[in-house]
C-alpha cells in the first residue's frame, strides 16, 4: 500500500537554551497514520512537536533553521513562510499537551473556544459539533447534563479527553500529542489509546510516548530522537 507523505522536515535544526535538539534532520511522516516519537527523556521530543505548529516562536532562547512542509489540499506549504498565517496553521495542526490544560471556563465554553477564536458563529451548528467531538472522545455521556459546570471540576482523565475534544473541534489534519497519557491512570490511558486508533482514518497523528507497550499497540511507525538525530525505525514487532 503506497503511503502519501503529509509532513516533511528538511534540514531542520533546532536548539533550545543552547541545547541542540535537532541537527540537520530530514524526515517524512505519512498521512493518516500514527507515528510515535520516542527517545530518552530530555532529548527534546516535546520541543520537537512545537516546531510543527510554530509554538516554538513563543518560547524565549530558541533558534531554528531549516524547513517544514505540510500537505494541505494537494500542495505542500512551507509553514515557516511569513505569508502562511500562523493562526491558520495552528487550526490545521491541533495539539494536546502532557498535562491536561482546560481553561477556567465551563466545559461547553472550553470545547467551543477554538470556534470562537476562529470567529465562527456560536449557533446550533456549534452545539452539534461540540456534541460530536465530546462523543468522539467518549465524554458526552459523562458530561452532557453538566456542560455549564467548570471544566476544572473534571477528573484528570476526563480533562485530557476534553482537551482532545477541544483540539478536534477545528477538524485538524494533523494532531500532535505530547505524552497524552502520562498523567492518567491505566483505564483512562486505554480509552485515549483507543481514541487515537479511531482517529487514524481522519488525521495524521504524531504522539510522543515513552511507554514501549503503548507504542507497540498503536503506532504505525516509530521515530527515535537521540543526540539531535532523528531516525525512522520500522516496526518489526508486528506478529
Amino acid at each position, binding site marked *: 500500500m503506497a503511503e502519501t507523505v503529509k509532513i516533511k522536515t528538511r534540514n531542520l535544526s533546532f536548539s533550545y537554551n543552547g541545547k541542540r535538539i535537532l541537527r540537520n534532520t530530514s524526515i517524512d511522516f505519512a498521512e493518516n497514520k500514527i507515528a510515535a516519537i520516542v527517545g530518552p527523556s530530555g532529548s527534546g521530543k516535546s520541543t520537537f512537536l512545537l516546531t510543527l505548529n510554530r509554538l516554538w516562536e513563543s518560547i524565549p532562547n530558541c533558534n531554528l533553521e531549516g524547513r517544514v512542509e505540510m500537505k494541505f489540499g494537494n500542495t505542500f506549504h512551507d509553514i515557516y513562510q511569513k505569508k502562511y498565517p500562523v493562526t491558520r496553521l495552528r487550526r490545521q495542526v491541533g495539539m494536546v*499537551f502532557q498535562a491536561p*490544560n482546560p481553561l477556567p471556563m465551563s466545559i461547553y465554553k472550553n470545547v467551543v*473556544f477554538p470556534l470562537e*477564536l476562529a470567529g465562527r458563529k456560536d449557533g446550533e451548528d456549534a452545539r452539534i459539533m461540540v456534541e460530536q467531538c465530546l462523543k468522539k472522545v467518549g465524554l458526552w455521556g459523562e458530561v452532557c447534563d453538566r456542560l455549564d459546570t467548570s471544566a476544572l471540576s473534571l477528573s484528570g482523565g476526563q480533562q485530557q479527553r476534553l482537551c482532545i475534544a*477541544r483540539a478536534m473541534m477545528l477538524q485538524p489534519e494533523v494532531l500532535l500529542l505530547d505524552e497524552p497519557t502520562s498523567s492518567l491512570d491505566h483505564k483512562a490511558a486505554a480509552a485515549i489509546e483507543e481514541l487515537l486508533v479511531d482517529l487514524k482514518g481522519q488525521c495524521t497523528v504524531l504522539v510522543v510516548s515513552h511507554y514501549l507497550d503503548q507504542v507497540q499497540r498503536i503506532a504505525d511507525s516509530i521515530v527515535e530522537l537521540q543526540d539531535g538525530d532523528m531516525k525512522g525505525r520500522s516496526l518489526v514487532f508486528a506478529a
Partner: protein
Amino acid sequence: MRKFVEKIVPLFSWMCGIVLLVAIAGVLGYLFLKGYRSLGLKLIFGTTPPLDAFLMRRPVFNGLFPAIVGTFSLVFLAICWAIPVGMAAGIYLAEYAQGKTKQILDLFFDVMAGLPSVVVGLFGFSVTVFLNRNLSGRIYPCLFISSIALAFLVLPYIIRTTQIALEGLPGSLRMTALALGASRLQNIVRVLLPQSLSGIISGVILAIGRCAEDTAVIMLTGVVASAGVPRSLLSPYEALPFYIYYISSQYVDQEELATGYGAAIILLFICLVLFGLAFLIKKRVNLYSLYRA
C-alpha cells in the same frame, strides 16, 4: 561572641517591633483622639444642608465638601488617563517587547517610578507654562493639569502591576489558546488578561490610593486653599491632602485646626480602605507596587 550575638538579636528585634508599634499607635491614636470630636456632618458640609451641597444649590463655605469633591474628581480623572495607557504599556512590555527594547523600556519605567512626586509636579507646572505661552494664554494650573501630572506619577505602577501579573502566568497557560489557533491578541484578551485580573485590579486600587494622598504634585499644579467645588476641568480646585497641609501652617483658631484633624482622619480612612481592598483582592500584593517615591 557568637553566643552573645545569638542572644542579643531576638532581644533587639523585640525592641524594634515594640518601638514601631508604639510609634505608629502614638501617631494614629493622637490623630484620632484630637480629631474624633470634629467628625460629623458639620465637618463636611458646614452650615449648608447636605442635600443642597450635593445638588450644588448652595456652596459650602466652612466644610470639607469642596475638598472632598476635588479629591474625588482629581483621582477619577487621573486614573482615567493612567489606566488605558498604563495597561497597554504593561501588556506591550510583557507580551511584545523583547531583548534590547524591553531592557530599555524597563529602565525608563524604573526611573519614572523612582522620581520624587515634587519633580513630577514641577514637570506638570513647566508643561503648563509651556502651553500658556505657546498654545493659549488661558491655560493656567488647574484640575485638568493636576490630573495629568498625577496620571504620570502613577503610570509606572500600573505598567508594572500589569506586566508582572501577565509575566507571572505559567507558560502552559500561555500556550493553550495559541495551540488552538488564537492570535496573539486573542490570547491576551481572552485568556491572559482574565487570568491576571486580580493582580491588575489590586495594583490599580493602590494607584488610586497614591493619587488620593499625594500632595506635592498638586501643590505645584493648581490646588488652592479655597476655590469651592471645581466648576470645570480648567478651574482651580481644593483637595483633602493639601487642605491638611495648609491648615497645619495657616490655622487661625482651634476650631479651624479641628477641621484639619477631621480632614486627616477622613483622608486616612479613604486610603486605608483602598489599601485594605487591594490586599483583600490579592492576598500578597506585589512589593513593587507598594513602593512610592
